[in-house]
C-alpha cells in the first residue's frame, strides 16, 4: 500500500479544516459542520478550477482575494436542482396539501435553502393554478447573495425546459408550461407575476434562528450536505418555525427517521416526503 497517498490524504483533511475554520473566523460563513465527503469534493474541484495544487494555497487566495471568496461561496452553495424535481412530490402537494391550505386566510411558506429558485417558481406555479397564490407569501432563503440574485432573476437555461415540462405535467400541471416563461436566445425568463409574493432573503440555516411562523416549510435536498449534528439543529429550528399542523417537505431520499424530531410529525402518504406537524 502507498503510505505517501495516505499521508497526503490526512494532510488534505487538516488543510480543509483550517480553511473552513479560517472562513468562519474571518467572515462568519460556517461550513464546518457540512458533510465532509461532499464538501471535500467541492473544495478540491474549486481548487483545481483555480489552478492551485494545495488546499493551503487555496486558503491563502480565499482569505485575501474577495473575488475568489465569492467564487468559493457560490461553488459551495449551489446545489443543482430542477423545476418540479420528483413530480410525485408536487402531485401529492396538490392533492393533499392544497386542500389544507385552503382553510387558512393567509399562508406563510418558507423555502429554506432555495438555491437558484427552481423550487420556488415550481411552487408559485402550482399555487397560482390552484388559485391560492394571492393569499400566500413565500420566503425564499439561502446563505449566498449570488445564488439569491439568480433566483430573483428567474432566468434558466432553455435546454432544461424539456425536462421541466415533463416534470410539470407529471406533477399534475394542466396548462402549457411555456405560458409561464419567455424564451430569448438560449435562456428563458419566468413571468414576474410568479415572484410578486416571494421575498428572497439571506438566511443561514447553520447559524441563524427562526424568523416567523409558517404553515409550510420546504427544505429539500439541503440538509443532505450537513453532518448529523447540524442536521439535528436545523430540524429543531424548522420544527420551531412551523405552526401546529403545518406541512414539512423534504427531498425524496431524505428521512426524518434518523433525526430527533421524527416522532413529532405524521406522514401525509407513505411515498412522498411530506409530513404534518402533530405535536
Amino acid at each position, binding site marked *: 500500500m502507498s503510505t505517501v497517498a495516505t499521508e497526503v490524504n490526512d494532510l488534505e483533511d487538516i488543510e480543509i479544516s483550517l480553511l473552513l475554520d479560517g472562513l468562519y473566523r474571518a467572515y462568519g460563513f460556517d461550513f464546518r459542520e457540512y458533510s465532509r*465527503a461532499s464538501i471535500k*469534493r467541492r473544495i478540491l474541484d474549486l481548487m483545481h478550477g483555480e489552478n492551485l495544487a494545495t488546499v493551503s494555497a487555496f486558503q491563502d487566495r480565499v482569505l485575501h482575494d474577495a473575488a475568489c471568496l465569492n467564487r468559493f461561496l457560490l461553488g459551495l452553495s449551489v*446545489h443543482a436542482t430542477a423545476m418540479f424535481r420528483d413530480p410525485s412530490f408536487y402531485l401529492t402537494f396538490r392533492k393533499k396539501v392544497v386542500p389544507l391550505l385552503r382553510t387558512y386566510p393567509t399562508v406563510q411558506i418558507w423555502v429554506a435553502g432555495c438555491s437558484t429558485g427552481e423550487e420556488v417558481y415550481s411552487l408559485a406555479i402550482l399555487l397560482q393554478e390552484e388559485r391560492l397564490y394571492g393569499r400566500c407569501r413565500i420566503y425564499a432563503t439561502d446563505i449566498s447573495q449570488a445564488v439569491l440574485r439568480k433566483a430573483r432573476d428567474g432566468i434558466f437555461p432553455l435546454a432544461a425546459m424539456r425536462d421541466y415540462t415533463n416534470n410539470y405535467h407529471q406533477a399534475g400541471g394542466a396548462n402549457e408550461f411555456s405560458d409561464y416563461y419567455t424564451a430569448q436566445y438560449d435562456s428563458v425568463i419566468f413571468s414576474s407575476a410568479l415572484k410578486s409574493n416571494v421575498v428572497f432573503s439571506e438566511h443561514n440555516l447553520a447559524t441563524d434562528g427562526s424568523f416567523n411562523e409558517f404553515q409550510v416549510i420546504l427544505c429539500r435536498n439541503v440538509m*443532505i*450536505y450537513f453532518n448529523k449534528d447540524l442536521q439535528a439543529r436545523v430540524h429543531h429550528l424548522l420544527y420551531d418555525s412551523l405552526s401546529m399542523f403545518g406541512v414539512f417537505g423534504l427531498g425524496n431520499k431524505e*428521512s426524518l427517521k434518523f433525526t430527533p424530531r421524527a416522532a413529532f410529525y405524521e406522514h401525509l402518504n407513505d411515498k412522498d416526503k411530506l409530513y404534518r406537524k402533530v405535536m
Partner: protein
Amino acid sequence: MAYEIVVVGASTGGLRALRVLLSGLPAEFFLPMVIVQHRGKHMETGLCEFLAHSSRLPVGEPEDKEPVLPGHAYLAPRDYHLLIQSRSFALSTESPVGFARPSIDVLFESAADEYRKRAIGVILTGANHDGARGLAAIKAQGGLTLVEDPVTAVCREMPDAAINLTRVDWILPLQEMAAGLYRLSINPGQYES
C-alpha cells in the same frame, strides 16, 4: 486485515452483470455491497426490485444518513450521487460528473477516503470511463481493486479504462467475481499469498 466494504460500478450491460454477481453471493456474505449502476434520469424505479429478486442479500436504495450495515446490498438512487461518510450514506445533487449522476468515481473516491485499505472496488461492464479514477483512489489508499475481464464484459470500455489507469489486483471473468469476493471476505489475506 479485514475488508469492510465492497463498492461496485456498472454501466451499459450492468443489469445482467449485477444479477450474475448478486446471485453468486451466499446469504452469509457479510460485507456491505454498495452499487452504482448508471441509468437514465427518467428511468423509473424497479431496478432495485429486479436486483433483489436475484439476491440473497437484502437490496435497498439508501436514504441520507442511513447507516451502512453488514450483509446488505445498496443501490445508488437515480439522480443523486451516493457517498459514504462516518459509516453512513450521504447523498448529493451536485452536478453530474462525466455526465453521470450517480457517478461511480464519486462513490469510489468517498469509499477510498472513508475505508482506506479496507475497501474493495469492483468495476464491471460499461461504455464509458467512469470508475477508473475512483478505482485508482482505492488503490492509492491501499484498498483492493477488481475488474471484470474485458473479454466477458458486454462493453469493455469501462474495464479497459480502469485497467489502463491502475495496476489492478485482480481481473476476473464475471462468473468468478462473486466467488472471488466471498473468498476475500472470509480470508482477506488470500490476495497477498
